[in-house]
């Protein structure tokens, strides 16, 4: 009987950034979060966050009164302690796990300024991003589509599957695990494939619902995350 291997990233998750004066200096007149200071989301299993579909919300907690915010936020002036939820479509971008927020004012390119939905951050403001399931954050593949499992490093193993979208190519999951666990992983996958049907999916790694769940056969491998690389984006 076919088995289905399931991979899910760590969602929901949230991370906060307290803006520094160095951030503000580096971000002058450009998208905030670019240049030499990033709001870089880390610690979620190793894969980059590249899609706005992965963001549930971005809020800013104002350290003090600020009148350099978009007109859609409290009429364009917030007070100390006020929490504003930013407009994801207009003011927030994400690429390579780096969060960028368009300012509401500045002297840079007009394309980087949004007087309605932007937010000009100041030192001490707290930005909180909450992540959800989104583009390519979870996937399920039949064991029959597994083409090979190969070590990439002492703490890294690559699962190669027949591609979802393009025949003749492969989709890969590079799984991070404790050092020296490659043989244990392939033994476990072999046992899963040969074993009794469990009546559902087999969780290679499931970071959903606020915790980490791994199939019992793989539980001793120290799996901590994965990078998913499908052949073509969706």
């Amino acid at each position, binding site marked *: 009987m076919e088995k289905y291997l399931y991979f899910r990233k760590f969602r929901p998750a949230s991370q906060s950034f307290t803006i520094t004066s160095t951030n503000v200096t580096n971000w002058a007149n450009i998208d905030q979060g670019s240049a030499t200071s990033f709001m870089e989301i880390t610690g979620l299993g190793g894969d980059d966050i590249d899609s706005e579909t992965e963001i549930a919300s971005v809020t800013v907690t104002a350290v003090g009164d600020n009148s350099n915010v978009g007109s859609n936020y409290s009429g364009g002036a917030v007070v100390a302690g006020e929490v504003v939820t930013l407009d994801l479509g207009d003011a927030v971008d994400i690429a390579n796990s780096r969060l960028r927020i368009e300012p509401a004012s500045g002297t840079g390119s007009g394309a980087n300024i949004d007087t309605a939905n932007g937010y000009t951050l100041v030192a001490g403001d707290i930005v909180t991003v909450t992540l959800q399931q989104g583009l390519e*954050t979870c996937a399920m593949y*039949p064991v029959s589509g597994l083409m090979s499992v190969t070590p990439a490093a002492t703490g890294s193993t690559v699962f190669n599957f027949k591609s*979802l979208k393009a025949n003749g190519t492969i989709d890969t999951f590079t799984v991070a695990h404790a050092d020296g666990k490659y043989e244990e992983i392939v033994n476990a996958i072999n046992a899963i494939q040969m074993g009794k049907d469990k009546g559902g999916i087999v969780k290679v790694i499931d970071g959903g619902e606020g915790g980490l769940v791994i199939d019992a056969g793989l539980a001793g491998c120290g799996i901590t995350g994965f990078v998913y690389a499908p052949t073509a984006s969706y």
Partner: protein
Amino acid sequence: MENENYLFFADGGDNDQANDAIMFPASRFHGAVSTDNTTLEFFFKDAAGANSNDDISCTITADKHEAVCNEFASLATRTKTNTNNFTVISDLNGGLPSNEGPISAVGITAITAMTITTA
């Protein structure tokens, strides 16, 4: 394949136009992937052997990707011995007459809409 499970999908149409509905042998399933918080896409090897595969893009209840995958796996692997119905993954067509055929289940209820695209 003998005793193969056949998986059925139908959108809200009347099963009288191309891509209103489709049935695949379970062995042609390539996998599924989330594309946003409320979308899960299922891929099957295309019948015509095209380079790209057939895609069933399903709108689901928010954050229910795991539950839908789990239910899909259970349905796709269930024992078919001594039954003659195929397996309904999702049938969103509520307008068919009762004598239309053997479809007797709506399938995975967390699926609320779908778009069927064949290569």
